[in-house]
Structures are given as C-alpha cells and as structure tokens.
C-alpha cells in the first residue's frame, strides 16, 4: 500500500476485483484487479482493443461487467440503484475520448448541463460563476458563447474537461485524453490535467498509449495485457522490467 510523506497509508478511493467482461465470445477483461489511492495518477496502458476503455466504462457504470466487484469511494457500483449511481457519478468525472460535447448546445449550455442535473438548488448567478471558473481553469473563458463546431480539437478537449470538472469530482477517468492531438496540444492537455489535479485534488485513472503522456502523468502504470494486469508499478521500474511485452511498450 502506498504511503504519504508522513508514512501513513493513503486512502483507497477505488478498488476493482476479479473483473470479467466479454462481448459475445470475445473476452475483454479476464480477472482484472486494481486499486487507486487518493491523489494518485494511475495510467492504464495496453494495446488498442485490450479493454482499457471497457474497464473505465465498467467503473462509471456505463457497462455492466459479467463478474467481479467495483468499489468507488466506498460504494459497490454494481449494487447501486440508478439514483445512487447518479449521486456517485457527481463525485467521479469522465473525460470521453471523443470529448462528447453536445453539438446542439453552446459551450455555456454544455457546462450548465451537469449543473442543472445535480445542482438544482443553485441560483443563476452561482451557476454562471461556476461556469466561468471552470472555463478560466482551462484557459478558455472567452469561448463561453461559442458552439462546439467552432472550436479546434484541443479546445474541445479543454471544454470537455471543464464540463467534467464543474461538479468538482474526487476521481477523474480520462479515456485517451491526447489521442488525435498534435504533440504541442497533447503536452498542453497533460499539463492541464496536472494543474487540474492540483486545483481539485483529484485521483485519476488515465487510459493511454501515448508514452510521452504516460511518462508525465503516471505515479503508477498498470499494463493491461490479455484482459489481465500484466505489470503494475512506477514508470521508472517498468522501464527496467526485462519482460518482453513490457519492453515492447517502453522501447
């Protein structure tokens, strides 16, 4: 168990145990287990189609695993009622690979959408303040009245991140945050993720196969191979790992 600077064990915020998920005959996750601790960034690394996105969709409750247990912030995700799951999702943010901004809504409406659902007691002024604050944190306050179609790929990613952060989640799940972006924008997004973690004190699971992103973000790397956790450890220790599959990713 990881220790903090005062040698006290860190609080576990997420626990996945013996997870199985298959689509027809294609078993994607086979006895996968992992933990996430408070303020930790874990990068899940694996080939395309290895089940990385399936894993985080199971964690947030978008997919139901065939077997296994998932505990998020002390709640068993698979046993929750839809209402309880909605309450839990306020505390867990999800950044989609495709950004998933609502095309028919402006940036402001996109950011207001989760607030209208979860923060119904908030006044118009409070909502506006939160929207401006979230946009300022991602450096795009000036885009508030623009439509998603008017934004570049990097800007959309930032807006999607702002929308996710507006509810101030404790855990963030990032699905390939730098895929499809140029190296400079990728670096900016990685810096933004680190900045956001400082501001909001989040723990994160990042799905990626962009090694530059992995190196900058990861406190710990989990390698998902053949549906299982093949290797788990800090970036530097996996770099030294002689296993040919691990080496295949790092070199």
């Amino acid at each position, binding site marked *: 168990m990881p220790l903090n600077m005062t040698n006290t064990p860190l609080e576990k915020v997420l626990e996945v145990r013996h997870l199985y998920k298959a689509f027809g005959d294609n078993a994607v996750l086979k006895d996968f287990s992992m933990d996430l601790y408070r303020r930790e960034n874990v990068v899940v690394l694996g080939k395309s189609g290895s089940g990385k996105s399936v894993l985080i969709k199971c964690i947030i409750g978008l997919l139901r695993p065939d077997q296994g247990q998932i505990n998020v912030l002390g709640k068993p995700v698979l046993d929750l009622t839809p209402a309880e799951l909605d309450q839990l999702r306020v505390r867990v943010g999800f950044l*989609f690979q*495709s950004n*998933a901004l609502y*095309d028919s809504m402006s940036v402001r409406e996109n950011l207001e*959408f989760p607030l209208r659902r979860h923060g119904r007691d908030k006044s118009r002024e409070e909502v506006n303040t939160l929207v401006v604050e979230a946009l300022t944190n991602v450096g795009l306050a000036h885009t508030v009245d623009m439509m998603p179609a008017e934004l570049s790929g990097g800007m959309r990613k930032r807006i999607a991140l702002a929308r996710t952060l507006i509810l101030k989640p404790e855990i963030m799940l990032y699905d390939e945050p730098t895929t499809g972006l140029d190296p400079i924008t990728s670096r900016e997004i990685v810096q933004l993720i680190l900045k956001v973690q400082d501001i909001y004190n989040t723990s994160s699971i990042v799905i990626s196969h962009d090694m530059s992103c992995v190196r900058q973000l990861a406190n710990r790397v989990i390698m998902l191979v053949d549906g299982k956790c093949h290797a788990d450890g800090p970036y530097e220790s996996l770099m030294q790992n002689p296993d040919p599959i691990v080496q295949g990713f790092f070199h």
Partner: protein
Amino acid sequence: MKLQFPSYRLILEELGGLARFTGQFFRNWAAPRMEIQEFFRQCYMIGYRSVGLVAITGFILGLVMTIQSRPTMARFGAESWIPSMVAISIIREIGPVITALICAGKIGSGIGAELGSMKVTEQIDAMEVSGTNPFKYLVVTRVWATTLMVPVLVCCSDTIAIWGSYLAVNMKNETSLALFSQQVVDSLSFSDVLPAFIKTFFFGFAIGIVGCYKGYTSSKGTEGVGLAANSAVVMASLLVFVLDLLAAQVTDTLGLN
C-alpha cells in the same frame, strides 16, 4: 443479377427490437423528472420548423387534385361537386397520409441522424454520466413531440390544401369563398373528421418512435448514422401505410365510413 430481400428472421428481429424499444418508452414516459423544457424545444424543432414544407405540399396537393379532377367531373356535369370531393379526399385520406409521409422523411430522418450521431460520438453516454436518463431526455421528449405535432401539421396541411383547391376552382369558374366553404363544410361529417384526426396521433407516434429507435440503437460509426437516417424513413413510411390500413379497417368495422 439476383435480387436480395431481407430474410424473415431479420424482419422479425427488427420488429422485436422496435417492440422492446416501445415498451421501454412506456416504462419511461411517466418516470420522475419531466423534461418539460426539452419537450417544448422539440415541439418547436419538429412542429414549427416543418410548417413551411407541409404548407407548400398541402397547397400544391389541393391545387393539383382540383385541376386533375375537373375534366372528369365536368364530363359528368358534376363540377359543382369538386369542393366536396376534394375536401373529403383530403381530410379523410390524402392529407393525413401525405403529410405523415413528408414528416417521416423530414422528422424521422432528422431524429435518426441526430440520435445516431450522438450515439457514435458518445454524447448519450456523456448524458448518462451527467446524471440524466438519456432515454427520457432524448427519446420520450421527441416521441411526445412528434405524437402531438404531426396532427397539428396535418390540420395545417389540410386547411391549406383546401385553400389551394379554392384557388384552382377559381381559375376556371368564379366561385365565392362563402359558397366554396359552405360546400366543403356541408360535405364533411363527424365520421370524416374524427377518425382521420385520431389516426394522425398514431402516425406521429410511429414516426417518432421509429426515428428514435433507429438513431438510439445505431452502431458501426458514421456509416451507422446514415443507415439510421435512411432506415428510419423507410420503416416510418411503411408503418404509416400499415397504420392507415388498420385505421380504415377499424372505421369500417365501427361503421364510420
């Protein structure tokens, strides 16, 4: 070249999927949190934005029907019956069916493509993660909106078609508006208007549910979006005819013909 028809198994699967989706609609329509704002937005998008198209087609329909039927009616010395014939044809059958087909093309494909693209770009998942029941927010509101707006559009289309007919009648003979209107009203009875009006709600429901079903269950990425839009139009148009046939049977059985 060998023609390939869809297998009966595929058709049954499709009908089963639609039936299950309709069941899901009825389970969700009264669930808590009414999406009133989204419902009115959809009414505006579906109803108001289709008025122009429906008005133009209705006007042309009335005009052409009158022009085409005049020679035959004149041969039998029944020109004075044109207003009655056009009114009954339009109100009972042609107006609702043609308007529903236009709505199947415009609204059904629009809903299919919109929900299909939301599905492939993970917007529906994002909605769920934001604590929203996407089925209720996207499907229930759209199906209600089409169910209520298609009858309104049919009423507009029927009225404008009769105006078109009045214009066509006046191209050859001068007929006063009062006389024309009197003939139209006198020829229509309760049993002409009510069954025709009631069936438009079913047309609207069919267009909405098929568009949503095709979009909401689309897959195969961007190719799936096009397929969803296309098959929504085909299936909704077919359902309009099937429902029209059923409506004709029911009104006949009830002695309303």
